[in-house]
């Protein structure tokens, strides 16, 4: 009797358990949070850049911090005098190219220097900033890039090693480029001069195939300091979800590898902790990040950024065809689900007068001609919006990059 009762009770508990399982939907949640407006205005200088001793251009970007609520990501610092200075007294002024960018075309003559170098900045308000002198630290080449994909997406990895066991601290960033095309292909261009007419679109002006390039936005760091050999194996560089438009035709990634000192590594690691790795239960408390640049005219003024110098290694990888998530079973919805094709007929099919102007109002793009099946006469054109027929609409270029290898 008792046993039976127990059994029933147990049954009851499982039932309740199941019901509760359905009830407890969100034990935890995160919701957007807008912090209270800051009372103090913070306007600190941030220096971003890497003194590249390879044959590439050295680019240093100066900017000012902005309020969190500002729509601008930062405020460019203009009209500053920026130069790379050596501890031997050498001085190489950079050229301002606008938008806070300062460049030096080629520092490869410094690549074998045993001297140490730093940045010196004099801003337009006559404040002087100086970085610590840093040694040149060259990155070993990237041994290989590879990727592992499944229906969820593709993870790209890099591998490297330093036979001299000297590098130890690494940072990576990347540029990804992918090919995508518009929903509809345009074969015509509407011209108004010398007269209103439709002409065949040339290959140089094609709007169907585009190449979109994006820079990495996360900090990728790794270290072999705890290993007996200076080897980095399967370091995750990027993960791209299956549903990303990056995987529509062909995808390419150019990975840059920087060698860091342990101090520089700590700086970036800290920045990463403070701005990327938050939100878990055991978070480290956020803290201010101290770089290696100082305001010599006002030592108490915080300066943001860390200057490093050396040779940058880079390597490119292509992904396409059977490696794409589509081929691995992911169902990828087309980004053009809302695209509609318009059919525009001439009002005056004989003269075609002025009708073409109407086509330009509202910015549609002519796609292909409509012809009378019996007479073969041109009756009008199909058209669609730029979003659907100009692949540059999302910020790509219609010129195939020189490095592009159309494999797929």
């Amino acid at each position: 009797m008792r046993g039976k009762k127990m059994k029933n009770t147990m049954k009851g508990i499982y039932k309740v358990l199941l019901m509760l399982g359905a009830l407890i939907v969100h034990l935890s949640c995160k919701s957007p949070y807008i912090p209270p407006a800051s009372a103090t205005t913070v306007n600190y200088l941030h220096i971003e850049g890497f003194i590249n001793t390879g044959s590439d251009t050295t680019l240093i970007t100066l900017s000012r911090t902005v309020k969190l609520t500002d729509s601008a990501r930062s405020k460019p610092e203009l009209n500053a005098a920026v130069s790379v200075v050596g501890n031997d007294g050498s001085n190489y002024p950079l050229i301002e190219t606008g938008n806070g960018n300062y460049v030096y075309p080629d520092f490869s003559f410094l690549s074998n220097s045993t001297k140490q170098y730093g940045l010196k900045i004099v801003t337009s308000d006559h404040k002087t900033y100086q970085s610590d002198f840093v040694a040149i630290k060259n990155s070993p080449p990237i041994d290989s890039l590879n990727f592992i994909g499944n229906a969820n997406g593709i993870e790209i990895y890099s591998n490297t090693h330093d036979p001299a066991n000297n590098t130890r601290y690494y940072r990576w960033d990347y540029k990804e480029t992918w090919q995508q095309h518009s929903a509809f292909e345009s074969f015509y261009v509407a011209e108004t001069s010398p007269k209103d007419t439709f002409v065949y679109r040339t290959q140089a002006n094609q709007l169907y195939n585009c190449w979109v390039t994006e820079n990495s936005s996360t900090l990728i760091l790794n270290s072999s300091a705890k290993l007996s050999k200076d080897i980095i194996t399967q370091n995750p560089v990027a993960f791209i979800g299956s549903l990303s438009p990056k995987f529509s035709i062909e995808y390419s990634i150019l990975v840059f590898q920087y060698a860091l000192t342990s101090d520089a590594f700590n700086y970036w690691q800290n920045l990463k902790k403070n701005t990327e790795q938050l939100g878990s239960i055991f978070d480290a408390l956020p803290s201010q990040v101290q770089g290696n640049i100082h305001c010599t005219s006002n030592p108490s003024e915080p300066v943001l950024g860390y200057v490093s110098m050396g040779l940058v290694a880079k390597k490119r990888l292509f992904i396409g065809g059977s490696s794409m998530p589509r081929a691995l079973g992911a169902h990828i919805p087309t980004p053009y689900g809302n695209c509609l094709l318009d059919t525009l007929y001439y009002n005056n099919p004989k003269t075609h007068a002025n009708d073409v102007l109407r086509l330009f109002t509202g910015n549609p793009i002519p796609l292909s001609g409509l012809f009378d099946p019996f007479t073969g006469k041109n009756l009008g054109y199909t058209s669609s919006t730029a979003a659907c027929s100009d692949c540059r609409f999302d910020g790509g270029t219609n010129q195939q990059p020189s490095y592009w290898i159309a494999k797929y």
Partner: protein
Amino acid sequence: MRKIYLLIFSLSFVFKIAYSQEKVANKITVKFEQANIEQFVNALKLKTGYRFFYDPVQFDSLKVTLDVTDKPLENVLEIAFNHTNFHYAIIHQQVFLTKGRVLRPALVSGFFYNTPGGVAAKQVVITNYADENIEKVPEATTENKLYEIGIKTNNIKPGNATIAGYLRDVKSGEPVIGGSIYNPITKTGVATDQYGYYSFTLPRGRHTLTIKGLGMKDTWRKIVLYTDGKLNIELQEQVTSLKEVKISGEKVANVRSVELGVNRLDAKSIKQVPTVFGESDVLRVVLTLPGVQSVGEATTGFNVRGGAADQNLILLNDATVYNPSHFFGFFSAFNSDMVKDIELYKSSIPEKYGGRLSSVLDVTDREGNTKKFTGTAGIGLLTSRLNIEGPIIKDRTSFSFGARTTYSDWLLKFLPEAYKNSSASFYDLNLDISHRIDDKNHIYIAAYFSSDNFKLNSDTAYDYSNRNANIKWKHNFNNKLFGILKVGFDGYQYGVSSTGIPVNGFDLKFGVKQTNVKTDFTYYLNKNNTLDFGLSSIYYSLNPGDFEPKGEASLIVPDVVPAEQATESALYIGNKYDITPNLSVSAGLRYSLYNYLGPQTVDNYAPDLPKTSFNILDSTTYKKGHVVNTYHGPEVRISARYYLSDNTSIKAGYNTLRQYIHLLSNSTAISPIDVYKLSDPNIKPQYGDQLSIGLYKNFKDNTIETSVEAYYKNIKDYLDYKSGAVLLLNQHIEQDVITTKGKAYGIEFLLKKTAGKLNGWMSYTYSRTFLKQDDPNAGETINNGNYYPANYDKPNSVNFTGNYRFSHRFSISLNVIYSTGRPITLPVAKYESAGSERVYYSDRNVYRIPDYFRSDFSMNIEGNHKVHQLTHNSWSIGVYNLTGRANAYSTYFTEQGGVINGYKLSIFAAPIPFVNYNIRF
């Protein structure tokens, strides 16, 4: 019993025949050679004609050999029973022979209050009739019986005598801890210690003592105190009738005790507080007490009066538990079915405790039932528990065993994204054995083992484990002095391992162990003075990190942070002195001595320069066993109580403490893989002192307790962290920490109703905690060297915990918590770096997260209350976070696709229903 009556009846029949014989002369001449009792009595009977009463069975060992001529009967018996355990008494030609006890044919002196002749009367030793056996301590179970204590005299000497003994539950034989014994005439009282032991010095004579114990029926005992003696008192369990006013030992204690800032809760109060998932949880209940702040929703870390979470000494049966939590802190490590009661010392920390700055949380397990086997079992949504207890040797040895395990993996699916695809499991085991060797010697053995394993959404596996075992020997030297010798081992260890990427496969181990030897003595010097003194020593052995390769392919270089070892010893003495009936003072001094021991290599830093790698001058290597450096100093513990009236008192206290072991954690919550560090030449011990004052008043027959306590606290050399500090596997941890000063102050109001249909407590606390780091030599200052609020500074907090009993079988509980949001560091600006927006943070802890509010509700349904049934069962059904408020656990700003977004993370952001089923057998 019946047999004895029969025997006496038949004997008296025999004697009656003997009595009819002719009376003889007073002086007799007899000769016996190895005569047995029958021969002996018959011969005397013949000679004297007296009637003899005796039990032949008791006298079967008697052999009489004597030769007397013309002696009175008394002399004959005297000689015959000389050096034996036999006695005689002659009353009106009747002779009573007894074994072991003397029959005194006279009334006890003091039986009547006005003894003629007064105090000068001669003292005669009289017998305790109640004693079956001289050795045995009377078990005083009846209220109206007069218990006579000590060696009886026919009149009572003036002065004081001491009674001592145990207060026990008559049903289970478990000790009643914190029970009070009170003499209403002299207005003095004592409380039982953790073993249920008491010692009470009283004027000799007749008294009625009132006895109160938590969860026990109030009772009284009538005694006549002759000399020092023992009295064990057994109490009946309280069967609460709803309308009855329940008086418990604790109540009066709050006004009467000399200590301030002490909260005691029994298992019953713990169980009626609703908690998430319905698991009654010791640490969650602690969080409802005034002056205690929670670190966060899903953590069991707590802050007491502005102290850090590692400044709490958490003791389970006197064993130090380093990590009191399971499952990332969702559950406390204590099996609530095993817990008898908890005591939290926030201010007056007894001098026998030391080593932590803020508080002592003393969790005591129940001693096993010494009379019969019983047990409980519970089935909850996440854990199941089983507890069994019972006698090994009845009334002498008992055990109590508890086990708990989880099936909580499903819960992880509801955790934040980061914890999906995770797994977790834990279990814990408790075993307590109590053995009474004799009335003077007790042995207690306690063991605790906990184990946690989890994976957080990756191939990295974590595990951690608490291990504690100790043995205590309690010896009562006499009524006034008893001592406890404790030897124990406490350990905590964790491991992290991964083989996800074969070349990076690693195995990380961390462990802290301590071996303790401790003696505590309590000496009841006299009525007004109770001395506590003792000696303790802890040997710490710390493995601060052992990082090893795992797997064949692993290229990990073993990285072993050198082991650390130290001893922490202390000598203490304290006296509780009742200066007048109204004024009592408890003053203690603890002298602690800390030795950091070799083998060790210690870096020497340039003086007055920041501790950084380039300021290392050289390093010194110490051999094994050599003392690297020593810290020592006195710790003062003083408190005083003054009665303003019978139910009102005012108290004040001051204490200083030192802490030699540090928990390094720069995360919001204490994580299972935080690092412990022993003080060394470069890291000083923490020092704290606290001044507190309190007013206590009870109303309505002590059923309503109110108190106000205020405190001011200073903390020195508390460790905070440099920006981006690395704590794990750091061989030069002193380079990443900074020492701060702290100050904390606050006022706590508590209203507690302990009886009636509605019971519970409500508290309001205003408290502030600030830290300051202004040493320019530390390398960096925080907030320009100004005071900044600590992470757990929550100025206003209100707690309500209430239980309403509709009937014996149905009650509801409600829990309401409000507190100011904790301080956070928020970004004040943004800039672009490495392809994304990045934030620049404000000064530390300038902002606060939104205020915290939560209410929980539960219904407790008991099965029927028939006494004679195999099992008793009960249900507890409720809802955690009734209003579903999404309380902010933290706010954070993180880069997403190159843009910084602010988020508020909430845990348990919806009402969470729970159900729990318990069986008692």
